[in-house]
């Protein structure tokens, strides 16, 4: 079962990565990136990192790709994008990929508990967490500075 998951994840990752950098239309590239992120989540599931697999889906498929599409829709008319690529086709491909990967990933045993991460983040490497948060805040301020007169 896990070998099947590895093969499916590998195919999803390679096809998604190649599509995202070679597709002529940027929306097809974003669809490829979505498939790539789903494949990465499958790899995490295969390797036993169930929390990372779930986080990959929530953060990247649910957040980053949506953010990219939203930013791209500021420069294009969303209606024309949907007409050109078909919202049903895009949603269908993503849903089918999720349906294939997620049940396979759930059979992998996860020995780490969520509470195992707490002492790691808040005691041993707390300063790294603070630095990451500071960098994120700096990025938000920099983005705000770049776009301060954006209308």
């Amino acid at each position: 079962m896990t070998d099947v998951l590895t093969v499916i994840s590998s195919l999803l990752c390679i096809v998604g990565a190649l599509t995202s950098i070679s597709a002529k239309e940027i929306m097809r590239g974003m669809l490829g990136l979505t498939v790539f992120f789903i494949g990465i989540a499958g790899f995490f599931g295969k390797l036993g990192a169930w929390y990372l697999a779930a986080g990959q889906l929530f953060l990247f498929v649910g957040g980053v790709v949506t953010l990219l599409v939203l930013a791209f829709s500021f420069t294009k008319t969303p209606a024309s994008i949907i007409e050109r690529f078909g919202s049903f086709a895009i949603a269908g491909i993503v849903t089918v990929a999720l349906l294939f990967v997620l049940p396979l990933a759930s059979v992998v045993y996860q020995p780490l508990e969520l509470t195992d991460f707490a002492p790691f983040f808040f005691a041993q490497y707390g300063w790294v967490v603070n630095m990451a948060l500071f960098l994120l805040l700096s990025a938000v301020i920099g983005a705000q500075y770049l776009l301060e007169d954006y209308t």
Partner: protein
Amino acid sequence: MIIAIAIILFGIGVYGVLARRDILRIIMSVAIMLGSITVLAVALGSQLISQSFVLFVWSVEVLEIILGLAIFLYLARHDTKDINKLQELKW
């Protein structure tokens, strides 16, 4: 096999960064590179440390996407997506 796939994906990402001029494609290529690095870290490292490392890589990736999208919208305001047209961000 997973390590080989991760290395191949990293190569695809490097090609995308070097060959493309579109800022969105460069963002996506860097995301591919970082995704392959996370898979490589989880495949090679011990569980707790490597998975924690992945969480830090995610924070850097989100940071990169925040700034990349800001630059993309900045370029879109000037009716281009070509990063070679960027002049005002030079020192």
